[in-house]
């Protein structure tokens, strides 16, 4: 049954996933080409200085891609189920509602994780050709909040979709925007590697993930079911 639930999620996400995969590949290729072009036009020491001292990152154009991806994944996955109260179909399946929800969220998060891994892998590979391991690590730490914002957008949008009352939905929307904005606040590359920042990010993501279950529980017996 769990496999069937996962398969259902895949059927919904498949088109969006492949489009997003193409977008992420294109953006990463663009970033890699930009880095190569930088190194062909400037002395490496200048670029190293810009990266280490000034904190410039060559893949800043990726900043808004993950959170937009998170929104698109949430829409592709959940809108087909909440349109015309279709969520009732899932709620009546002979599995616990929490199990169905966990399957749905877990699979959506995994798909997003695949895209994030792609970003990380491409950046690590292109960086390795030009920078030492320490700078590659700093760049990956700089990528982390961008991807975390994507996951926050995915969870937050899910809460907004599932929440039945308009006022709670607005609250969820505000919380999601605040969380995503907070994670995306420009910071020195590697700033998110501190334990405090990591704990804050993890707390925000966990809270948003839990809120999706609360939204589901809240709307479960209201007769609305979106």
């Amino acid at each position, binding site marked *: 049954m769990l496999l069937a639930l996962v398969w259902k999620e895949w059927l919904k996400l498949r088109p969006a996933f492949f489009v997003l995969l193409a977008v992420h590949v294109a953006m990463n290729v663009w970033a890699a080409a930009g880095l190569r072009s930088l190194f062909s036009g400037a002395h490496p020491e200048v670029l190293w200085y810009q990266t280490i001292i000034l904190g410039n990152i060559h893949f800043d154009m990726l900043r808004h891609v993950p959170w937009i991806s998170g929104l698109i994944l949430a829409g592709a996955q959940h809108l*087909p189920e909440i349109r015309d109260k279709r969520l009732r179909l899932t709620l009546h399946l002979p599995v616990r509602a929490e199990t169905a929800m966990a399957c749905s969220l877990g699979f959506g998060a995994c798909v997003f994780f695949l895209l994030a891994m792609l970003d990380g892998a491409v950046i690590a590979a292109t960086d390795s050709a030009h920078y030492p391991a320490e700078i590659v690590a700093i760049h990956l730490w700089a990528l982390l909040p961008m991807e975390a914002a994507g996951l926050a957008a995915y969870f937050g949008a899910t809460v907004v979709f599932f929440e039945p009352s308009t006022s709670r939905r607005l609250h969820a929307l505000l919380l999601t925007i605040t969380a995503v904005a907070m994670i995306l606040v420009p910071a020195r590359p590697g700033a998110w590697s501190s334990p405090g920042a990591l704990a804050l990010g993890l707390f925000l993501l966990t809270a948003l993930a839990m809120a999706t279950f609360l939204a589901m529980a809240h709307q479960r*017996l209201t007769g609305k079911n979106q």
Partner: protein
Amino acid sequence: MTNAIEIRGLCHSFGTRPIHRSLDLDVGRGRIVGLLGKNGVGKTTLMNILMGFLRPQAGQCTIMGEPSHHLSPHTKRRIGLLFEGHLAYDFMTITQIERFYARFYLDWNPARFFDLMERLGLPGSHRIRHMSEGQRSQVVLGLLFAQEPDLLLLDDYAMGLDAGYRRLFVDYLADFVRDKNRTVFMTSHVIEDMERIADDLVLLRAGGDVRHTTLKGFRDSFHCYSLPYDGQSLPVADSVIFNVERTAGGRCEIFTFASEQELVAALRRQGFSLDGLRRESMSLEDAFIGYTGRY
């Protein structure tokens, strides 16, 4: 447990507007029950409660012995739900949706599903979102049948169906439920279908008034008489006269559960002449409108 559905003292209101007030209702196993009522009397609310999507504010509603809002997966397997608008996962194809649901039901009977799909004449790769309402209703019906449920809750199954698809739906459903003594609780705005399939009727009126009767009992006991209407005054409802409606052609219709003698006495008491009083034949729809009122 002999009842598939048991409702005791069910109360529900929206804001200050009461919908159900201390509703009691039993649906025995193997019965086919039609829930009828005008818009706004609480049919959808009751179906939502029965389907487990709304917790009643007071009272109990049990399905197969379990609270309707807290059904175990085992009991959910025994209940087939048909949602208003023939909801289905419309992003799936015919083949995919059968493959998906088959994983959840131990007694899944694919032959029932594919029998209907063959008649539909669409390829398995046809996506449900590209189907007409009638075609989708066949897919949903096939899924319900393949599930082999003991209880079917059907919410406005006729919505959006043309006469042909509606007849097909009702006839298939009738054969299916008689086959294994299944229980059906359904709503529809097409009253005439109830005559073809229902054993019992639950008639809801505004204010929470409920009458649970057999279809035959209702047809035999509820009568309509007509009387010339002078444009001045109409008989008023009392303990004998259930409802009065003006009709075209200068007559009024008087509905009653009482005998003709009792009606005659009641009309005399109200000072009406009995000249032109005649008994009218009624379809079930006429009787329904007479019972629930036109306005």
